[in-house]
């Protein structure tokens, strides 16, 4: 049972609409001609995903999803569109060629093949979860103890990314 807008509803009522929203946004991104439309569709997808994360009791990650992905990364994308002045003409739609068909077909094939995995999964999610599951405190505790090395390494990675992005994108070094 999940509270939605103060009313207790079964999860399915939240999941399927969110799922449709997410996939719809993704497909819109795939199919739209305008770069701004594509970016905004992707933002919609990210919001849908954030909702799904909340449904999965991953509240910290949901928050981070919105802050970082929808808030920072997509904004970056939009800045680039603005910087390069990309319009409709720059986003030519794909021609119907062998590569296109094979590419699309392989993506579809992948989805179908993945169905085979789902045969062997347990029916339902467990009803109860550990105390503080998915909350900031417990995930943070995990990050600072078990995953401290990746944590620090990630900070260095971000530093490298910053420096690298500045160097690569500069007009004159």
């Amino acid at each position: 049972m999940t509270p939605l807008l103060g009313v207790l509803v079964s999860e399915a009522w939240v999941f399927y609409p969110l799922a449709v929203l997410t996939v719809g946004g993704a497909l819109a991104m795939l199919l739209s001609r305008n770069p701004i439309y594509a970016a905004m569709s992707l933002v919609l997808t990210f919001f849908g995903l954030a909702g799904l994360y909340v449904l999965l009791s991953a509240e910290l990650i949901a928050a981070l999803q919105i802050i970082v992905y929808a808030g920072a990364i997509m904004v970056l994308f939009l800045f680039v569109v603005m910087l390069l002045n990309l319009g409709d003409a720059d986003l030519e739609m794909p021609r119907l060629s062998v590569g296109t068909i094979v590419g699309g077909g392989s993506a579809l094939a992948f989805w179908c093949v993945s169905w085979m995995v789902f045969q062997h999964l347990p029916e339902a999610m467990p009803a109860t979860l550990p105390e503080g599951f998915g909350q900031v405190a417990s995930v943070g505790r995990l990050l600072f103890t078990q995953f401290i090395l990746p944590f620090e390494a990630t900070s260095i990675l971000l530093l490298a990314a910053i420096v690298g992005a500045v160097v690569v994108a500069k007009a004159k070094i």
Partner: protein
Amino acid sequence: MNPQSLHWIILLPLIGAAINGLLGKRIGRGNVHLVALGAIFGAFVVSAAALWNVSFGGAEKISQLWWHWFTIGSVPVEMALSVDRLSATLICVVTGVGFLIHLFSTEYMSHDEGYWRYFAYLNLFVAAMATLVLGSNLLVMFVGWEGVGLASYLLIGFWYTDEEKAYAGRKAFVVNRIGDFGFLLGIFALVALFGTIDFAELQTAAATLIPSAVLQGGVFAGWTVTAALTLACLLLFVGATGKSAQIPLYVWLPDAMAGPTPVSALIHAATMVTAGVYMIARLSFLYVYAPGAMATVAVVGAATAVFAALMAYAQNDIKKVLAYSTVSQLGFMFIGVGVGAWWAAIYHLVTHAFFKACLFLGAGSVMHGMKDQTDIRLFGGLRKEMWHTWATFGISTIAITGVIPLSGFFSKDAILHAAHANPNLWFSWVPTVTYVLGLIAALSTSFYMWRMFNLTFNGERRGMKEHHAHESGPAMTGPLWILSGLAVGAAVWGLPLASGARFERFLHGVFAPAEANLRRVTELAARELGVAVPPAPGHDLAAMLPGYLIALVVALVGFGIAWYLYLGPGKGKSALIAEKAPGLHAAFANKFYVDEFYDSVVVRPLKGFARVLWQVVDSFAIDRLLVNGTAVLSGWVAQLFRYFQDGNVQRYAVVMAVSAVAVLWVFLF
């Protein structure tokens, strides 16, 4: 003498060869001579000590295990040397005569630029020959066998810038190789039969063989002992025909005269060519079990003796006559080992070494005095100008033709006597045939040797009339006198005494196992055939006297004919004979066209086959089709694949995605 010092006989010449070969050019002619002569002299001293030791010292045999070489399967192969009276005799001859020839060479080769190379090769030869003689198993002997073949090739083709001389060396090596192949197969057969290559072990195993027993397992399963041993012995004999120049592999020896004359003296007269005889004598205890092989040896030897002697009739090159003479005399030695008179064959080997070396060195002296000319038709009257050479050459000629009281008479006659006196239960015609052929060969030997002597030394000069031949210096005439002295003095070992000749008794211990085996085999065969056991040949002079007289008469007849045709009233008759029967004369002069026959039957097909292999298989199939073809194919395939690299990264991603899905599919299914 310390038994552990046998290896110095091999090492000293080897070190001498190394020093002369590597540093010879820089250390000067005198030092090169010193090193070479010193090495051989040292080897001779050790050999003499070994001979003294086995003759008068305690042991009949000295053995030295130099080092363990390898083990193959269950057969250990050791670098082991041993000396008994047989090998001691031989090694003393090799090093002693070798020393004299080295001495001769110091003057003979004094004008040659490559003297350091010459002495290095000569020392190398002595080292290899020592390995051959001293080896106490078949494989060490084979190492020496190959080594002397190598040294022979290097020395025959010494003046390699001359194409013909180089080809002569190559011919010698190739023909020898054919023989060596037979030798190797023989060794393999013996290993298959006895599981060992050591002579002592073979001798022990052979003492208890039953000739008619059928072998159970191994390669020769189902064969009788006699049949298997006959095969092995025949294969070994093929090797002997190659090295010792018998029919059919003698063709390299006349061509080998392209090398320097002292080389011919040492290698192709005194030592290397006797290796085959030595090998069969060494394995005498095995050969007696194979009467077929022994008969083959005897008959081939006799046939070669006659055939070569006939070829010498019409030769005009002084060295060629001596070459054919060597082939013929080797035939005599093989008659000796073939009829079971091993001591006689070895005795003839020793005396032949002396007088043939003396003859060859004498020929070298003649050539030295006549500006390297070899055609005896141009010689004549050299007696007046080269007295020492004339005298020593004459003494050696008397020895080779077998005239009392020189050693050649006793050795040749010992063989001829054994040829007709030793009984042969299996091939009753062998004694008669070998004796008759031997006599014909002896007659021919006398004739062509005296012909050559008369044409060279006696009479008047026919060609190069303005040239005054000078006698050679002491370094050359000294060895000549020593060798002719030995040719005379060696007779004392062969005098037929009541208890057998001195040399026969000397070598009795070496050949006792063979004789014991022969007696056993003869008794078994006599029982089977239902005849009486033939008595062993005796030593009484009465039985041998007729043979002596016949041999003497034969020698004198040959002398007489030669005198008549070339010095006496019959001068010019020889030319008449040549005119009246041109075909016959051509056959004799062209060595019965044997070389031409081999050329058309063996050499040409081989060359054609090689050409096919070269042009079709190697040049076309392997080079063009396979090697270049692979490269071209790679190029085509690469051209095909390069179209995948179009720079479009998205295309690459598509391929990756398809592959990933496929792999996923495979894993999930």
